[in-house]
């Protein structure tokens, strides 16, 4: 096996681990959203941090839909104003992220 082929295989494995971890992180993200809805604005920074990570790694491994939805969440969490509109959009983006992650995971038999 050439070095390039070995790297491609390793990237595939790391990408699968990324999907597994992202699947586990959806629920904590949703819990943060619930706390935000209840008025805990301190959750915004953690939502932003998690979403930024998923956005960056998702793009790295070619999971474009996951990366796009995570980016939307990251941008929403950087907002200064937390209103009903933002909370509804955040909920929709989280659902889209969950679905995109599940779809990608299914293609890898997860």
């Amino acid at each position, binding site marked *: 096996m050439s070095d390039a082929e070995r*790297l491609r295989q*390793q*990237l595939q494995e*790391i990408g699968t*681990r990324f999907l597994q971890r992202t699947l586990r992180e959806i629920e904590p993200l949703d819990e943060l959203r619930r706390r935000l809805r209840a008025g805990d604005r301190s959750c915004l920074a953690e939502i932003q941090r998690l979403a930024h*990570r998923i956005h*960056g790694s998702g*793009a*790295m*491994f070619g999971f474009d839909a996951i990366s796009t939805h995570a980016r939307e969440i990251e941008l929403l969490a950087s907002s200064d104003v937390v209103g009903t509109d933002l909370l509804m959009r955040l909920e929709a983006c989280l659902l889209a992220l969950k679905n995109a992650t599940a779809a990608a995971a299914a293609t890898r038999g997860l």
Partner: protein
Amino acid sequence: MKRAGLRTIVYVDDEPDIREVVQLSLELTEGLQVHTCESGEQALRMVPQLEPDLVLLDVMMPVMDGPATLQRLRSVGSLVDLPVIFMTAKAMPQEVARFLELGAVAVIAKPFDPMQLGNQVLAIWEALPGE
């Protein structure tokens, strides 16, 4: 005068998957040794000990981001001229200009191509003025 060959790199990123990808990608280049740090704070401890030829710094990290880490590294006497490359998704021209003003020698946009990262870094290294 041409710079000596690139032998040792420290890569700093809070994201473990990206750290692993960068390390694997760069180590495809024969003779290149890559160390990784998970935070700016860890880099401040490790870089003076390792004395690498080059540091690659992620921009967005919690607690101490890339620019803050660069500023702190620069305050260490022996690291004043250490070449640092920022790696970031924020690679619009005005952002790149700001990072270069802060003292980075180059900016690599994320996401990067893992198959090409080694060549990209080597090209930047070879374009640097001699020591």
